[in-house]
C-alpha cells in the first residue's frame, strides 16, 4: 500500500495532475491516516456482527415474500419479560377461552395487509411504550433495526421430548380431567382423532397415539403443524391452570425449550406402566397370518421372535421410539417388499438396520455406546450382518405354533412363555474360577511386571452391567462377560492368554496388534470409554512400576 501511494503521488506529479496532489510530506500524512482509519473501520464492522448470545425465543416472522427486506426475528421471551404485568391477551386474541397463538391473527392476512399490520402494530406499541417513558424497540423508519440479515444471536433452542415421565405426570395430575363420569382416566383431555363424518376431532378410547402421528412438522390441509397444535394445547392449559394458582408447566419459551428450563423439569426414575391394552409380549412372525389362511406352516420360515414388550416399554423414552408413525404393527407399513407406506423401507431393513435407532439392532447398537458397555463393545470390530447369530432373537421353535390358527391371545401367550424362560438377572462366574491377580511379566524391560487385578475388574464389569436388561438378555452365559477381553475365541472359563495370539514381535498383517499394543490398547481403550479417570493413560507407573537401571 505504501509503495503504491508513493508511486501514485509521483505519477500525478509527473503528469501535472492535481498539481501533484500527494506531494512532499502530504503523501506520508495520507498513508498514516490510511493506516489509522482502516483498523477503526474494520473493528466497527466486526463489532456490528455476531455478539454470539444464545437465545431460545427467536421467532422468525415468516411472510411469503422476503425479497424486499430480510425477515424479522422476533424475540418472544424478551417481550413477555419486558411487560410482566401484561397478559398474553395483549398480543394473542382469545377464542373459546383459549389463546390463539398467532399474533393477533396476522397469519390470516394477505402479504400487503400483513406487512402493513405488523409495521403499524409493532412500531405503534413501541411508540406507546417510549412515550410512556419506558425503553422500547425500534420505531417505524428504523427499518434495519428489525430487518437484519444476521441477528448475531445463536439459537440454543432445544426440542422438548414428551417422555414417559412427563406423560405419567400429566396422566396422574388431578388438575387434568376429562369426563370423569364416563372415563376413569383423563386421556381424552389431550388425545383425539379426527372423525371424517363428524368433520371434527373426537376422543375415542383405545385409539390414543402420539400427537405427531397426525400433527407433522409441516402444516397439512386441515391439520395444524405439530408446533401449532402443541403450543395451543400445552401452553393454553398451563396458562389456564397458572391463572387459577395451580402448580403447572411453563408458559414461556425458555421454560420448555432451554437446557436450563428442561433441567428444572422433574423426571421420575421409575415410571409406572401405562394402563392401556398393550401386550406384555409379542410374537413377531410376519408370515404367520398368511400361514393361518393356508392352514399350514410354510416350508421356509424364519423362526418367530418373542418380543418382550413390557421390558422394552421401560427401556425407551417414549412409545414413539419404536411406534414412530402409528401404534400399528410394524409390518402394516413395512412390507417385506418395501412399499410406499413404509417409506420404501422393507420389513427386514426396518428390523435389522444398524444405523436407525428405530429398529431393533440399531437401537441396541446405540445402547452399546454407553460408557458402561463401550469399554468392551467399542473394541469389537463391526460384525458383518451375515456373521451375526440370528438365533439370539429368532428363537421360537415352530413346533410351538401348532395347531393353527392362533388367535391374538394365544400368540401373546406363546411369546410370554418364551420370554419368561430368559434369565432376568445375570449369572456370574463364581469367584473361585476367576484368578484374583495375574502377573504380566512377559515383556519386562523398562518397567517391572504388572500386577493385574483381574477379579476386581471382572467384578466392576458385572456391577456396571447388572442393572441393564439388554446386557442380561444378551450375555446369556456367564463366560460371555469374559469375552470382552478374551475375544476372538469361544466363550470359556479357560480362555487363551493374550500372548497366544498377540505376538511380542509386533503387529500382524491381519490387523492384530502386537502384544505391547494389545495390552495398552485394550486396557487404556476400555478405561477411556468407560470414563475411568484413574489410572490415567499417561500414568505408566500406576500399572507397572519403573525398573531401576541397575536391575535391568
Amino acid at each position, binding site marked *: 500500500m505504501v509503495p503504491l501511494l508513493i508511486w501514485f503521488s509521483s505519477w500525478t506529479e509527473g503528469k501535472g495532475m492535481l498539481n501533484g496532489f500527494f506531494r512532499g510530506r502530504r503523501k506520508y500524512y495520507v498513508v498514516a491516516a490510511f493506516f489509522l482509519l482502516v483498523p477503526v473501520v474494520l473493528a466497527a464492522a466486526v463489532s456490528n456482527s455476531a455478539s454470539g448470545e444464545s437465545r431460545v425465543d427467536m421467532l422468525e416472522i415468516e411472510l411469503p415474500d422476503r425479497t424486499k427486506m430480510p425477515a424479522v426475528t422476533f424475540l418472544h421471551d424478551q417481550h413477555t419479560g419486558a411487560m410482566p404485568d401484561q397478559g398474553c391477551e395483549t398480543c394473542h386474541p382469545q377464542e373459546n377461552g383459549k389463546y390463539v397463538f398467532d399474533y393477533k391473527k396476522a397469519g390470516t392476512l394477505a402479504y400487503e395487509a400483513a406487512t402493513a399490520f405488523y409495521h403499524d402494530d409493532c412500531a405503534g406499541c413501541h411508540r406507546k411504550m417510549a412515550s410512556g417513558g419506558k425503553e422500547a424497540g425500534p420505531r417505524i423508519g428504523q427499518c434495519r433495526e428489525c430487518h437484519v440479515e444476521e441477528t448475531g444471536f445463536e439459537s440454543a433452542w432445544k426440542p422438548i421430548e414428551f417422555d414417559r415421565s412427563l406423560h405419567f405426570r400429566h396422566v396422574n395430575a388431578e388438575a387434568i380431567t376429562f369426563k370423569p363420569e364416563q372415563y376413569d382416566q383423563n386421556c381424552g383431555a389431550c388425545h383425539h382423532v379426527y372423525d371424517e363424518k363428524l368433520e371434527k376431532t373426537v376422543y375415542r378410547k383405545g385409539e390414543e397415539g402420539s400427537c405427531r402421528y397426525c400433527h407433522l412438522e409441516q402444516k397439512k390441509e386441515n391439520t395444524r403443524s405439530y408446533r401449532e397444535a402443541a403450543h395451543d394445547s400445552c401452553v393454553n392449559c398451563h396458562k389456564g391452570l397458572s391463572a387459577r394458582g395451580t402448580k403447572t408447566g411453563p408458559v414461556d419459551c425458555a421454560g420448555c425449550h432451554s437446557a436450563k428450563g428442561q433441567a428444572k423439569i422433574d423426571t421420575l426414575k421409575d415410571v409406572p406402566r401405562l394402563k392401556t391394552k398393550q401386550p406384555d409380549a409379542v410374537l413377531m412372525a410376519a408370515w404367520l397370518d398368511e400361514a393361518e389362511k393356508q392352514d399350514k406352516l410354510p416350508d421356509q420360515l424364519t423362526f418367530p421372535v418373542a418380543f418382550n414388550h413390557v421390558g422394552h416399554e421401560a427401556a425407551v423414552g417414549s412409545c414413539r421410539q419404536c411406534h414412530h408413525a402409528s401404534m400399528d404393527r410394524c409390518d402394516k407399513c413395512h412390507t417385506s417388499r418395501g412399499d410406499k407406506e413404509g417409506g420404501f423401507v422393507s420389513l427386514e431393513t426396518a428390523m435389522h438396520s444398524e444405523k436407525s435407532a428405530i429398529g431393533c439392532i440399531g437401537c441396541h447398537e446405540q445402547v452399546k455406546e454407553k460408557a458402561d458397555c463401550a469399554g468392551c463393545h467399542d473394541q469389537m470390530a463391526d460384525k458383518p450382518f451375515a456373521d451375526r447369530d440370528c438365533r439370539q432373537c429368532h428363537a421360537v421353535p415352530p413346533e410351538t405354533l401348532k395347531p393353527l390358527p392362533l388367535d391374538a391371545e394365544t400368540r401373546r401367550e406363546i411369546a410370554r412363555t418364551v420370554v419368561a424362560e430368559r434369565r432376568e438377572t445375570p449369572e456370574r462366574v463364581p469367584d473361585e474360577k476367576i484368578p484374583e491377580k495375574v502377573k504380566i511379566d512377559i515383556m519386562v524391560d523398562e518397567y517391572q511386571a504388572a500386577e493385574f487385578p483381574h477379579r476386581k475388574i471382572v467384578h466392576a464389569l458385572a456391577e456396571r452391567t447388572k442393572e441393564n436388561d439388554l446386557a442380561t438378555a444378551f450375555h446369556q452365559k456367564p463366560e460371555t462377560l469374559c469375552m470382552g477381553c478374551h475375544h476372538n475365541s469361544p466363550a470359556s472359563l479357560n480362555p487363551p492368554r493374550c500372548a497366544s495370539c498377540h505376538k511380542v514381535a509386533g*503387529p500382524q498383517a491381519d490387523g492384530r496388534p502386537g502384544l505391547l499394543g494389545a495390552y495398552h490398547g485394550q486396557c487404556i481403550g476400555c478405561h477411556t470409554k468407560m470414563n475411568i479417570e484413574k489410572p490415567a493413560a499417561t500414568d505408566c507407573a500406576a500399572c507397572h512400576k519403573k525398573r531401576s537401571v541397575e536391575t535391568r
Partner: protein
Amino acid sequence: MGITRRELLGWMAAGAGAGTFLKKNAWAAGNHHFTGYPKSAGVLHDVTRCIGCRKCETACNRVNELPAPETSFDNLDVLKDRQWLSDSRLTVVNRYFPAGTNSPVYVKTQCNHCLEPACASACFVKALKKQPTGAVTYDESLCVGCRYCMIACPFEVPAYEYHKPLTPRVMKCTLCQPRLEKGQLPGCVEACPKEALTYGRRDELIRIARQRIDKYPGRYIRHIYGENEMGGTSWLYLAGHSFGALGMREDLGVASAPSLTAGALAVVPMVVSVGVVLLTGIHAISQRKDKVAREEQQEAVNRAREEAEETMARKLADQKRAADKEKEAAIKREVEKALAESARENQPGDPAGEAGGREG
C-alpha cells in the same frame, strides 16, 4: 556476422534437439503420476490411539542423539501450548480439543516423507533426496544453507540450526534410515506403547488403514490423510475427527509440489537453448539486413557518382570537341582571312612573292 537463413534454421533445430534432452526429467514429474517407489516404506499414525505420552519424542531424541530438551519429555503440561518442530525436535506431539468432544485428541507431527517432496524439488544441490526406501534424506555435505526447502515444504517441516554459524544443518525426521538398514524399526514406532504408529510398506499400510476403517466405521473419518495429499506422503494418518480440527492442512490438494512447478521449469531449457539461438539469429538477420542496406546504398551512391562522372566526361569531351572544332574553324577562318588579306595585298604589288611563302 555472416549467417544465412539456412544456418539459422539449423542452429535452432539443434538447440531444440538439445532442449528435448534436458527437458525429459522435468516432464517426468509434469504429466506422469508418481505413486511412489515400489516397496517403499511408510508409517501409519492412528490418531485415535495416541494418548500423548511423548514416548516417541523421547525415543527420537535418543536415537538421533539430539540435545536434551528444556523441559523433560515426561512433562505433559507442555501440551497445553502448541508444540513446534525445531532443530532439536524432529517430532512433536500436539493436543487438540475438537468441537463436540470433551476428551483431548493427540497428534504426532514430523516430516511426512512425501512421494514427490517439495523440498527435494527446491533443492538445487540435491542435498535432499527421495530414496527408494521411502525416506527423504538430507546430506549435510552438499547443503549450501539457502533454506529454499523450508520455504517449499507445504507442511512447514524443515528446521534450521540458526545457532550454529559455521556448520548449520537443516533438521528434519530421517525415518531413522540407519536403523532401517540394520533391520530395526524407527525409534518412535518402537517406543509407542499404544501402537499408534505402524511401520511397513506404504501400500500395505493403506490396506491396513482401510481395513481398520471398515472394521470400526464409527471410530474413524473415512479418509487416509497422506494417501493423496501433495501427491501422496509416506506418513499416513487416521483420525476420528476432521483433520482440519487437528492442525493438519486440508487445503493442499492432490498435486505434488514438483508437478506444480514442472511446467514452468520444463520451459527453461527450451527457452535457454532455443531462445538464445533464435534471438542470436534474429540479431544476425537484422544486422545483416542493415549491412546489406548500407552496402546497397553505398553501391547506389557509387554508381550515381560514376554515372555523373561519365556524363560529365562525355560532356566535357563533347565540349572539348566542339571547342576544338570551333578553334579549328576559327583558325581556318583566320587563315582564310589572312590569305584573303595577303592575296589582296599581293595583287596590287606583292614585292617578293612572300605572300606565296605564307601559303599553307
